[in-house]
């Protein structure tokens, strides 16, 4: 059962064994967090940020470990292929040193598992960890139960030569996993961080993940998340970034898996002249549900944000997008642009979009747009007139609609990875491969 009480007792049973349990500040945060979670419970439609995604069912939801043994090494090999870079692997929410391959890092770069870092760098972590009041109640549950994750610290000016991959593989022995990744980038530092979520068997399982990114002045952080969990998984994640003057943050969220996936992505401009790109693509079918809730807080002047989300909704699925842009008082000369487009591929799919603008300054350029529709008949006709049959034409147009999101991923290996993941989802992906 996943009722509030079960989680509270799970916390009681586990809290003493959690890494860093001896640290008073951490123990206090965890205690506050579980109290907050117990107090608020799972968010329901009554919650303004959860109007289209209710977690009320979680009260009754049973989570069980995967019935079959999990071959994490094979899963990793299939995911990684021959790609180089720095790889941290988490199986069942715990760092798996034997599968990981951090490789040589430039000097000034520190990459550790959170559990290790709590031993050696607890003060750095205290500053970056976040607290029990962050996010909504699922994030509080993560704060209480997160046992591992990655800790990344880049000294000023350090650039990671290759993407850092953080892979979460559902294990065979646990029904839930809670990961917390912390990225602290000094001024002018640069890094690309990729989070992968895979695995999970036939039984329902829960993943919560919190990623916190602190980008000092002029740092450039690119974050890519590829969520491909199993059909029965529940995935609740939040990504929060704070940008100092001139920092650049790009987030790409590709959500293809899980029965229910919710991503809260927010960034705050804490200094002048920040830039953010929030790019997203989701594809769901069956009775699955995906929800992206984003917020860009232009707290300081001269910020520039661009946001693009695209959704493909098939079967009886439901795709939800909320994009909030806040321009604070005196955050003059802010420029914010946002788009959300949804393609309905079946009769029973549903798309919900809430693009929100909240503006307290006058010298701003803000716009948003949202569309929902099906494949354009004219385009379909055009392709057919060129000799494609209807099925291929439809598939090609569907792919083309989604591919726009892929083109915003700058690093080619990551783009092809994302493309392969998309094609694997789309019906007739192999055929498309030939066409393209």
């Amino acid at each position, binding site marked *: 059962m996943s009722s509030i009480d079960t989680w509270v007792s799970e916390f009681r049973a586990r809290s003493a064994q959690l890494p860093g349990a001896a640290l008073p500040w951490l123990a206090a945060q965890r205690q506050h967090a579980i109290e907050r979670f117990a107090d608020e419970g799972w968010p329901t439609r009554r919650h*303004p940020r959860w*109007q*289209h995604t209710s977690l009320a069912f979680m009260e009754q939801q049973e989570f069980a470990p995967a019935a079959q043994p999990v071959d994490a090494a094979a899963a990793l090999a299939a995911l990684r292929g021959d790609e180089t870079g720095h790889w941290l692997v988490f199986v069942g929410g715990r760092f798996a040193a034997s599968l990981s391959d951090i490789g040589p890092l430039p000097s000034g770069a520190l990459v550790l598992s959170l559990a290790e870092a709590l031993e050696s760098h607890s003060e750095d972590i205290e500053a970056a960890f976040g607290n029990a009041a962050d996010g909504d109640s699922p994030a509080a549950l993560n704060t209480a139960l997160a046992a591992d994750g990655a800790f990344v610290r880049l000294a000023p000016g350090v650039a990671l030569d290759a993407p850092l991959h953080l892979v979460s593989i559902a294990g065979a022995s646990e029904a839930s996993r809670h990961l917390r990744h912390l990225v602290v980038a000094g001024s002018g530092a640069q890094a690309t961080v990729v989070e992968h979520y895979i695995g999970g068997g036939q039984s329902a399982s829960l993943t919560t993940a919190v990623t916190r990114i602190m980008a000092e002045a002029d740092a450039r952080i690119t974050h890519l998340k590829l969520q491909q969990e199993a059909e029965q998984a529940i995935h609740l994640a939040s990504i929060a970034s704070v940008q100092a003057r001139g920092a650049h943050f790009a987030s790409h969220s590709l959500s293809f898996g899980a029965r229910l996936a919710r991503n809260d992505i927010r960034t705050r401009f804490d200094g002048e002249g920040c830039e953010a790109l929030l790019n997203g693509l989701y594809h769901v079918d069956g009775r699955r549900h995906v929800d992206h809730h984003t917020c860009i807080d232009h707290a300081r002047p001269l910020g520039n944000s661009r946001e693009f989300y695209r959704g493909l909704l098939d079967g009886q699925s439901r795709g939800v997008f909320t994009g909030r842009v806040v321009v604070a*008082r*005196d955050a*003059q000369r802010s420029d914010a642009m946002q788009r959300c487009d*949804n393609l*309905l*591929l*079946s*009769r*029973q*799919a*549903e*798309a*919900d*979009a*809430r*693009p*929100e*603008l*909240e*503006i*307290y*300054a*006058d*010298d*701003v*350029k*803000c*716009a*948003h*747009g*949202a*569309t*929902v*529709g*099906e494949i354009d008949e004219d385009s379909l006709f055009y392709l057919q007139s060129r000799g494609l049959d209807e099925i291929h034409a439809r598939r090609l147009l569907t792919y083309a609609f989604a591919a726009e999101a892929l083109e915003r991923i700058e690093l080619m290996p990551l783009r092809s990875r994302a493309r392969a993941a998309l094609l694997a989802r789309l019906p007739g992906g192999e055929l498309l491969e030939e066409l393209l």
Partner: protein
Amino acid sequence: MKTATPARPIDSFLEQEYSAGFETLLEADTLPKGLSEDVIRVISAKKGEPEFLLEWRLEAYRRWLTMTPPKWAAVDFPDIDFQDIVYYSAPKKKDGPKSLDEVDPELLKTFEKLGVPLHERARLAGVAVDAVFDSVSVATTFQKELGEHGIIFCSFSEAVKNHPDLVRQYLGTVVPPSDNFYAALNSAVFSDGSFVFIPKGVKCPMELSTYFRINARDTGQFERTLIIAEEGASVSYLEGCTAPMRDENQLHAAVVELIALDDAKIKYSTVQNWYPGDKDGIGGIYNFVTKRGDCRGARSHISWTQVETGSAITWKYPSVILRGDDSVGDFHSVALSNHRQQADTGTKMIHMGRNTKSTILSKGISAGHGSNTFRGLVRIGPKAEGARNYTQCDSLLIGDRCAAHTFPTIEVRNPSAQVEHEATTSRIGEDQLFYAMQRGLTAEDAVSMIVNGFCREVFKELPMEFAVEAQKLLGVSLEGSIG
């Protein structure tokens, strides 16, 4: 050489006073403050209502007691003490006026001062007017002429007396008493309003209009408007509102229900100019209104046009339920909030029928410390094959202390639907002003021109007389916003 800072002529323009802010001294029949079942019984008895209506009111009241005021709107005000409000106030009279000549001359003067044509001017203007003063309707013009077409246009109280069956058939079918907190309150205590019935196939030969005036102190105004257009009928209805200037806030919680049967068309236009409070946000009307139209019949058409310049706080979402196949819903809105005004307004378009279409055009203007929110919902139901919606909502900011928000929600459950939403936010730039002034316009004229240009698409939806009034009103309301 010195650079002259222009003495901001716009300032004085923006500081213009609320011109409808006078008070009429009249003897009034007023109930003591507070609300209870007894108060509702008294209101109902004073109006000589049939039993069913009293029961309906009491049931609404009981529902209301279990409800809490909505908190989700982006408006900020202290809690309202609902026991500190007078729920019924009417100009004193011995018997109801038989004709306009018997109406208290003070009252007529009031409406004259407001430019509402109740007398001969009405004939020239060709508009039939129902004037509602505080809680009751004082005069309705042109009833006879309209009667010849079979059109019923009268105060709600008269409708209850003379056409109880129609009232019973339609009242609360679009906005049920349990709909929301303020609708429940209105259902319990509403004292008057307008009633319009356009029979089958009749095109109403003139514009119908209601003029609402809050006069008495401490009163709340709770009117209820019900418009029914039968098969093939059409009507254009206008509504205007003002109130005296006072330091305390007054509550206005109205309910408007529109029902359009097959091929019927209802056009509902509002110029809302309740007292907005002074420039520091003291006083003003709380305008918490539920307006909803029901396109019940196939090919019916309901269109809302609103110009919202008054009220300290506006909470209003004129909506359309597109039930009939091929029905059409429109929402055209200009909302202005200056000084400390707060407006949270928008619309809901609920598409249920096939090939239903809706258009939302919203222009929000924030100035001074004003806050303006567009909140909308477009819902396409699973059966709304081929539904279309286009939404455009633009915000204009004047000054760096105002706020403009856009909160649209789109829910689509049918793949053949096409829904588009666009929003922009911009400001009146110094360069735009400079350009216009360099061409010889004064700053006021320049602002006025830019704002009017911004709102043009909505103004052109208004009947002509109203469009002129709306433009003037916008000019006046903006006074004091540039500085």
